[in-house]
């Protein structure tokens, strides 16, 4: 393996294939399109299949079918396309299928969609938000692993920057724990044996008439509680004596981390906290990091979404304020003027000046 200059889309497609992904279906949409192009180009050489679906509805359905036969499969889009997929994503969670979903979002305004979901019923998806292409290569492999480990969809939250920024990277296979062999997928060989399988989202058991929804839903709830307990990930720096703690995820965190390091270099007491998983949200770690700070400053590129989770984590221990906001280019792809070190530094400095004063 050697380092190669690759845009994020290509690196993520290669990482997925390295993780054993053999099926992808998608529908073009900026800034997700290149991910589809790379899967279409690369998968056939690996014995896999990439279908150009006629809509996002069918893309997620095709990935559902591929997953149900026991193969690692993925789909993706932007938040707009994922809106169309929500019904299937919520049902696939109840069917306990290990789908990986890519959201190359237009900015960060799909945080609620990613963490709350737009589908029906009680369900949760793991969400990984890589900060750069190197981490995306790890996250994609981790996503397939976690999806299979928990038999639950996992979402990768990226954006225009992640998809289109070229970095010198190496797609090195991650060392991950061995997972038990799949014992739920259908391949047709149990047909006619009297003991077939049924991959379904309503708790149906072959040979048993009717369903028992309450027992089934409570079992899924227990699984999601266990994920919440064990899978939260975060990154933090310089939090010990910080006056202001900057919280950011994904691409915005890359700016935030740079600015915090710059200010720390000048002796300014500012800290940095990044949720690596958006769900489960690393609430305990954030509460600990926020202890003793005068202010928690939330830098996100939207009207204020993650700030809800930050407030729920900090629980009033410090004032929480937004220092990001809506910022876009003319096309609405989320490459706005806020993506600028000096501008962000200015907002962090303003938060330092305010300190614990205004709430």
């Amino acid at each position, binding site marked *: 393996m050697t380092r190669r200059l690759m845009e994020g889309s290509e690196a993520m497609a290669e990482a997925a294939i390295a993780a054993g992904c053999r099926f992808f*279906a998608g529908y073009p949409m900026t800034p997700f399109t290149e991910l589809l192009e790379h899967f279409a180009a690369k998968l056939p050489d690996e014995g896999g*299949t990439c*279908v150009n679906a006629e809509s996002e509805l069918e*893309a997620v359905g095709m990935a559902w079918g591929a997953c149900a036969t026991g193969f690692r499969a993925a789909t993706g889009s932007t938040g707009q396309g994922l809106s169309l997929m929500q019904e299937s994503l919520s049902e696939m969670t109840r069917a306990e299928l290990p789908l990986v979903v890519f959201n190359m979002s237009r900015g960060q305004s799909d945080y609620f969609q990613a963490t709350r979901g737009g589908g029906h019923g009680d369900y949760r998806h793991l969400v990984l938000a890589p900060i750069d292409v190197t981490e995306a290569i790890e996250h994609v492999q981790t996503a397939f692993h976690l999806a299979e480990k928990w038999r639950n969809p996992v979402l990768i939250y990226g954006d225009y920057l992640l998809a289109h920024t070229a970095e010198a990277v190496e797609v090195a296979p991650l060392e991950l724990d061995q997972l038990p062999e799949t014992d739920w997928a259908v391949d047709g060989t149990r047909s006619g044996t009297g003991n077939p399988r049924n991959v379904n989202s*309503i708790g149906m058991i072959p040979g048993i008439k009717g369903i028992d929804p309450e027992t089934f839903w409570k079992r899924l709830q227990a699984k999601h509680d266990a994920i919440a307990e064990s899978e939260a990930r975060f990154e933090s720096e310089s939090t010990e004596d910080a006056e202001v703690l900057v919280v950011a995820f994904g691409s915005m965190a890359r700016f935030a981390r740079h600015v915090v390091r710059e200010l720390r270099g000048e002796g300014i007491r500012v800290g940095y906290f990044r949720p690596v998983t958006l769900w489960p949200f690393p609430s305990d770690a954030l509460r600990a990091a926020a202890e003793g700070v005068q202010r928690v400053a939330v830098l996100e590129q939207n009207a204020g979404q993650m700030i809800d989770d930050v407030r729920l984590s900090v629980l009033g221990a410090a004032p929480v304020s937004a220092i990001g906001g809506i910022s876009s280019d003319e096309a609405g792809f989320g490459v706005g003027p806020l993506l600028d070190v000096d501008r962000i530094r200015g907002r962090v400095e303003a938060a330092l000046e305010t300190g614990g004063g205004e709430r």
Partner: protein
Amino acid sequence: MSDTIRTDAPPEAAARRTGEFLPKLQLTGDHDLCPGCGEPLAVRTLLEAITDVGMTHQCVGVIGIGCYTALTSNMNVDLIQALHGRAPSLATGAKRMRPDTLFFTLQGDGDMASEGLQEVIHTAARGENVTCILINNGVFGETGGHMTATTVLGQRTKNSIEGRDADYHGYPIDMMAMLAPLGGTAYAARGTVHDAKGVARTRRMVRRAFETQLRGDGFSIVEILTMCPTGWFIPTAEGPGYLDEVLRSVHGTGEWKRDGELLTQAAVPPGDDEDLLA
């Protein structure tokens, strides 16, 4: 007892049941669907056709949402449960990964022609090597008898209570006329289960559809007209007659496309009836 049944004299003993017969892919004949429902017949015919083509231990069903979903606990088949209307895309992804397995979808008219029309059209156009089975009774049976995209003009449903009126409710979709001409469709036929001949012909159609898939020739579809006396608001015993007179007059039965050749008019599948009933 001689091998030949004499017809010139009364039988020596009254007819009696000598045993239970279930197709290999059916676990039980017991179900909770309404008396007179055509769906158990259609499903049984489908399961028999799978065994006919020798795929008893190498088949997967992708099931839609409707009354027939309750029949899946009777099926001795590996299954994937789809969302309403979405079975063709699931079958697409699954078949692409397991090309040697026989895949079929089981969908009602509400599922395939109303909610999921886009899915089945594109699956047919792509020439996916799957077989879609449409069981068409012209109503949403599970919700209690509501109008679907195939409800015929004049048919009374709970939301077309005076009968389907073209000016107000629009026209029914003829699924065969729509799907058969598509380039990716290799086999298309419409059968019925309202009488014994219909059941036998339908079994032959499903068999041909599966053979089409197994040859890798492309998309195949069999639509099966089924009785729904509950959703048609008629006495149970009148179901088969109503199907024959009302549904079948609009949704004509026969083969529409065979070996990729569009037939000018729906044809009876070749073979005489003795052969069919064998």
